[in-house]
Structure formats: C-alpha cells, structure tokens
C-alpha cells in the first residue's frame, strides 16, 4: 500500500516529481483477466485486483464508433468515419478500405457527431466509480492516423506530395471533431487526454521532418493546447523510432510520451537523459518479446531495468512497449505489476 491515491501518484509523476511509487495503469486483456480472476470477471474486477493507478477508455471501444456490420459474420463493419474495418484477434480492428477515395468525396463526407451521448457512457461510468482515486484517461487516435484510415494509407501518404491542401483539409475536419470530443471528456471528468497513433516505423518516421512540421505537429499541438488550457494532462503514444522528430513532438506541449519503443531501438536511458527534465516517460517494457515469450525472471529484470533508467527523480510511468496484446502471457503481466511495486518504491534504490 502506498501513501498516495493512484490519481495523486499519476499526477505527481506527470509533474516530474517523485511520488510514493512508480505508477502503473495498463490493464490486462480479457484472456489474462479471466485466467487470473476467473471466467466472467469484469474490467472493474481487474482494476481493483491489480490496484491500477489509472483507468482508461478509448474512443474506438464505444459501440457508436463501431457502426454497422457489413456482413452476417460481423467480421467487417463500417466505423463512424466511414472506413471499412475488419475484426482481428486483438482488441482493436484493422482498417481495410478508406471512405475518401477522391477529393470530391470530401465535399460530401461528414465527420461523426462528437456530442453523441452514447460515446461517453463508459467514461461516465469510470468517472463515477474512480474519480479522485484513480486517474481517468480518455484515449483517441491522432488525426494523422485517422486520416490514414479514412483516405487509405497509400493515398494519404502520397497526398503529402501531390495534394497537401487535401491533407490539411481532412486533418482539420478530424481535429475539429476531437477538439469537441476533448471538451466533452473533460466536462465529464477525464484527467488525462492520451493521443494514440504511430508517427514512425521501426526504422524512422513515416514522413520527412518538413512534412511533420507543416502538417502533423500543428494539429497535435492544437489538441494538446486545448486539453491543457482546460486544465488536464496530455500524453502521446507513438511506436517506432521517433528520435529524428522527438523534439517536435515534445515541443507540441505533451506531458508524457509512450512507449519509447525498444523494438525500434529507442533507448529509455538515453531519452531520459536528453528529455527527462521536460517530459514524463511511459513504457519500454518489451511486449514484442519479453512479456510474450520471456520468463517471469526476465520480465522482473526488464521492469527493474526500466525503473533504474527512468524512475529516479520521478517522471516515469511503467507500461508495456505497445499494449497488453493477446500473446502476452498472464503470468508475465502479473509479474510486471508485482515487480513494479517491488522495485518502484521511492526513493528508487535498485
């Protein structure tokens, strides 16, 4: 047991100060939950059992985001953006066909309604249950990544060269949806806005630095500024090797950065040294290998390394390097939480 609530722990950490212990809030997937807690256990059971410091919800997990099924099997559906998605083995589906095939389509394309009350039912539930005790995190995709899906990734990338006006027009419409979405989430009680969506591959960023500066970072900044002006924290997720553009992402005003992708060669210690005085680091516990195929001992060692590298002085939230996906072993997730509690007590002595 610590001396702080989970919420206090998270906020102190995001303020780059030392809390009582390193926070952790990533919940288990359904398989892990039911393995550890039994069939029929709920997400709330897991939150309480693992005493997670935060509770998250994602825009894509709501029924209104999912939209109508396109076949009897339910394998394909059209989501709120008009993109055709396919259900996968993971918690999030995969886009297979975009809604905007030409610029003319954009003339009649309508973004979804950010005020649809069905969108916020689960958020209201977790605020009612956990506000003040655990941090409330509202996640959604970066407009750059939504645009990739809406336009089709190949077309969207080529638009940066052949039709940058279309890039800005589309991302502007998506940004406007999320500005309103952020406002609604904060009014309900969200403490942290977490913007997901990758900017890089394992090798380097998907776009040139110039394209990020002109088209992507200003949109990110507008969302971050809006959230911070309304008094909440803003964090950003992106896989991949973002070192060539990490300064741009941080200058957009985010207060936390996830996951410092080890598969892409990102070094948690190096990033802590270079940017630890201005941003909270989140993640780096390898879920591509250690959490999936590693032993419990290896997981404990990985957690210890992450804490050693990033926790001293505060400003580190323990998380996986992407997500607790379906291949993460239940015993490894349990060990990740346990080891965080063992090694993460402040002052850090590992």
């Amino acid at each position, binding site marked *: 047991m610590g001396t702080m609530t989970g919420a206090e722990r998270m906020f102190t950490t995001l303020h780059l100060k030392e809390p009582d212990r390193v926070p952790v809030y990533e919940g288990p997937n359904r398989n892990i939950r039911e393995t550890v807690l039994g069939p029929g256990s709920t997400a709330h059971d897991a939150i309480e059992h693992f005493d997670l410091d935060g509770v998250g919800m994602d825009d894509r997990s709501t029924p209104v985001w999912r939209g109508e099924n396109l076949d009897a099997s339910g394998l394909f559906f059209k989501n709120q953006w008009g993109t055709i998605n*396919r259900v*996968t*083995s*993971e918690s999030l589906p*995969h886009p*297979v066909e975009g809604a905007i095939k030409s610029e003319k389509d954009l003339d009649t394309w309508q973004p979804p309604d950010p005020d649809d009350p069905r969108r916020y039912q689960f958020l209201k539930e977790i605020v009612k249950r956990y506000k003040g005790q655990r941090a409330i995190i509202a996640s959604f995709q970066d407009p750059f990544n939504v645009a990739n899906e809406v336009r089709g*990734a*190949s077309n969207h*990338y*080529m*638009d*940066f*060269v*052949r039709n940058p006006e279309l890039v800005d027009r589309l991302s502007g419409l998506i940004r406007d949806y999320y500005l309103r979405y952020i406002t609604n989430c904060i009014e309900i009680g969200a403490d942290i806005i977490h913007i997901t969506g990758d900017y890089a*591959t*394992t*090798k*380097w*960023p*998907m*776009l*040139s630095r110039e*394209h990020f500066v002109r088209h992507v970072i200003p949109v990110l900044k507008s969302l971050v500024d809006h959230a911070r002006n309304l008094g909440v924290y803003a964090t950003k997720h992106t*896989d991949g090797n973002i070192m*060539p553009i990490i300064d741009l992402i941080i200058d957009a005003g985010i207060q936390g950065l996830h996951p410092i992708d080890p*598969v892409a060669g990102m070094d948690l210690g190096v990033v802590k040294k270079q940017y630890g005085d201005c941003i909270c680091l989140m993640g780096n516990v390898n*879920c*591509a*290998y250690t959490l*999936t195929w590693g032993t419990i001992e290896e997981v404990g060692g990985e957690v210890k390394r992450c804490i050693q590298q990033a926790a001293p002085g505060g400003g580190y939230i323990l998380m996986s390097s992407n997500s607790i*996906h*379906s*291949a993460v072993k239940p015993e490894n997730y349990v060990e990740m939480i346990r080891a965080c509690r063992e090694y993460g007590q402040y002052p850090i002595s590992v």
Partner: protein
Amino acid sequence: MVDLNDIAKSLVDMDISRTEELTRTAIDAGTPATEILDKGLVAAMQVIGERFEKGEIFLPELLMSGEAARAALNLIRPQLIAQQDTESFGGKAAIGTVQGDVHDIGKNILVMMLEANGWEVTDLGVDVSPEDFCNAVRENDFQVLGLSALLTVTMPAQEQTIQALNTAGLRDKIKVAIGGAPVTQSFADQIGADFYAADAAEAVRKFKASIS
C-alpha cells in the same frame, strides 16, 4: 529519341505524368522496352531505394515514385510480354501477410517496389494460411516468397508456413523472406527463413541477391 536518363529523372522527381509522357515518346520512337525498363525505371528505383534506406526520403516520396514507375511499366509491359524476354524481369515473387494478420501497408509497399524494379509479383493478400501459401508455391514458378507479419502474435504463422512448405516438399523450390515490424534477423534464423529485411528497399536488394 528520348534520353532514358530523363525518364529516370522524372521518376526520381515523382512526376507521374512526365514519366508516362516520356515513356510513350520512347516507345513511339522504337526504344526497346527492355532498355526503358533497365535504364529508365530500374535505375531510378535503385536510386529511390538507396535514398529511402538512408532516410533521405520517406513513405510519401517512395510511394509517389513507385506510382510513376508503375505507370510507365503498364505502358511497356505488353511489349515485354510479347518479347517473352524473361531476363528483363527482376524475378517472380509472391507476397502475403500471414494467417491471422490483416496488416497490408508494408506488403503493399514491397509489392510496388518489386514491380517497379521489374519483378513479376503476385499479391496473395492478407490472412493467408500456410496451406494457401503452399498451394500458391505449388501451382506457380515463384522464385521468392515473402511473408509479412506485423503483430507479435502472428509471427509464429511465419514459422508455420515454412514448416508447411517443408512438409509439402516445396521448401527447396523457393526462397523465403520474412518481414514486419516485430520481426528480426534472429527470428528469421531461428525459423529457417532464407533472409529478413527491415524495409521494402532492403527487401528489393535481398530479393535480387537471392536469385542471382
């Protein structure tokens, strides 16, 4: 007479319409399709691939150049097929995303890059079972099979596909390449793949080397 260097330059400059225009002019002037391919398109795509591997250009530029190359290839393909000059082609390959995985952008970029380098490529799509990969190899004369997996949970399907090729007696018939974000060289070594590539540009180099 069209200077084939101009076709290469227009492709590197990502000018699709100019690449098409120059290619048409070259065809009309009687320039052999094989020369347009080798000195115009493949030469340019090698420059593009090198720049991408060095981080001098990124996905938008790579895809735009690929589109320019594809447009030109569509114009010269009938002549290449009519000549049945198989040495003109880079090789024959099949690419697919493995069973349980529906990610396709990396696969699509690789297909585009290989085609732009003169390869004849069959895109097997996504969520391809080991059995379907085996059937494709059995029924065609592919030289290289590319297996893409973007999720840790689907990487085992790359191994299962190689095992299926072994069981079916097809493994010696084809080179097998693997790729995808969580995939590594050590994993490729572990499962008996012939090679691994971190991105499409590296893959094109290794595909070519594997059949030479």
